[in-house]
């Protein structure tokens, strides 16, 4: 057996040997070439069917990824939209908070307006006159009013007592200094009209001065009362 292998490996030169060697060399050559080819380009060795299948798979994959991208974009747009509307809602809420704070009188404010000073050495001015004065200011669009050291708000009241005038429970004495923020022209016209509140006050013997100012400061603030009785109606309770 090993003799035959040895014989096989012994160099011989014949026509058939050369032909066989040539054929084997051809195989080696082709195999080497084929292996190189495979390494160089794996696609070119695929058959038409396989390429079509590959193309289909890639197409499906592209479709899937496109759908995913679209849905993600929609999510992103949705989230951005949410953020925008939330910011808008917050801005509106802040605006509301500011307006309500001013109306409730819990924050100091400043702006154009008027200052009315009522000198009343004889104590002839009645609470009713001050109420009328405040009402006229409100009618004329005053956004914030202060009477001496008291901030006037929606729940403010003025009453006549034996000792003089009380505003929101605080005893007040002349001179009465009323500051109001609003259009100075509108406010002064409302107060100074013939037969108006200031002429009525002057008729009692008091003197009034009215200044229109570009910047009136109203520093007095109120503390919001605790609600004892009133409750907000929830939307689902309404129906």
């Amino acid at each position: 057996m090993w003799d035959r292998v040895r014989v096989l490996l012994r160099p011989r030169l014949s026509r058939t040997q050369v032909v066989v060697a040539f054929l084997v060399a051809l195989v080696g050559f082709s195999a080497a070439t084929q292996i190189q080819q495979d390494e160089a380009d794996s696609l070119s060795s695929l058959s038409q069917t396989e390429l079509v299948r590959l193309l289909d798979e890639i197409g499906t994959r592209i479709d899937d990824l496109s759908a995913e991208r679209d849905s993600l974009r929609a999510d992103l747009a949705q989230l951005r939209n949410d953020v925008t509307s939330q910011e808008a809602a917050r801005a509106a809420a802040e605006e509301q908070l500011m307006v309500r704070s001013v109306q409730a009188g819990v924050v100091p404010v400043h702006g154009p307006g008027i200052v009315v000073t009522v000198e009343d050495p004889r104590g002839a001015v009645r609470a009713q006159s001050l109420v009328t004065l405040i009402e006229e200011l409100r009618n004329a669009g005053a956004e914030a009013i202060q009477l001496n050291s008291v901030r006037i708000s929606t729940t403010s009241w003025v009453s006549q007592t034996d000792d003089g005038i009380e505003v929101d429970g605080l005893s007040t004495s002349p001179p009465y200094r009323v500051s109001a923020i609003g259009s100075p022209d509108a406010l002064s016209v409302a107060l100074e009209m013939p037969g108006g509140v200031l002429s009525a006050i002057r008729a009692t013997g008091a003197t009034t001065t009215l200044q229109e100012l570009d910047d009136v400061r109203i520093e007095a603030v109120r503390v919001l009362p605790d609600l004892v009785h009133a409750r907000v109606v929830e939307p689902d309770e309404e129906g």
Partner: protein
Amino acid sequence: MLVAVGLVIGVILGLVVQPTIPAGLQPYLPIAIVAALDAMFGALRAYLDEVFSDRVFITSFIFNVLIAAFIVFLGDQLGVGSQMTTAVVVVLGIRIFANAAAIRRHIFKA
């Protein structure tokens, strides 16, 4: 001996020259190589069985290669090219294994 030298020369040539396989030939070359491998293993087995014939080897080599390529070509024309390639490779692979087993029995007596 000359055969081994031929094989080495062929491989080296292929690696050095790096020829481009023509596109029309590309599906058939791998099959042709497997068929040639089969013929070579068959030849080695025949030699160890002491029935080797140069004539048989050369003709079987060429015919195997051509028929394998033709079968795959036919398969491509019929639209079952890849399956036909697989079939040919399986058949030739079985033959190669059988030949290799026979050669192993000759060499190792087991």
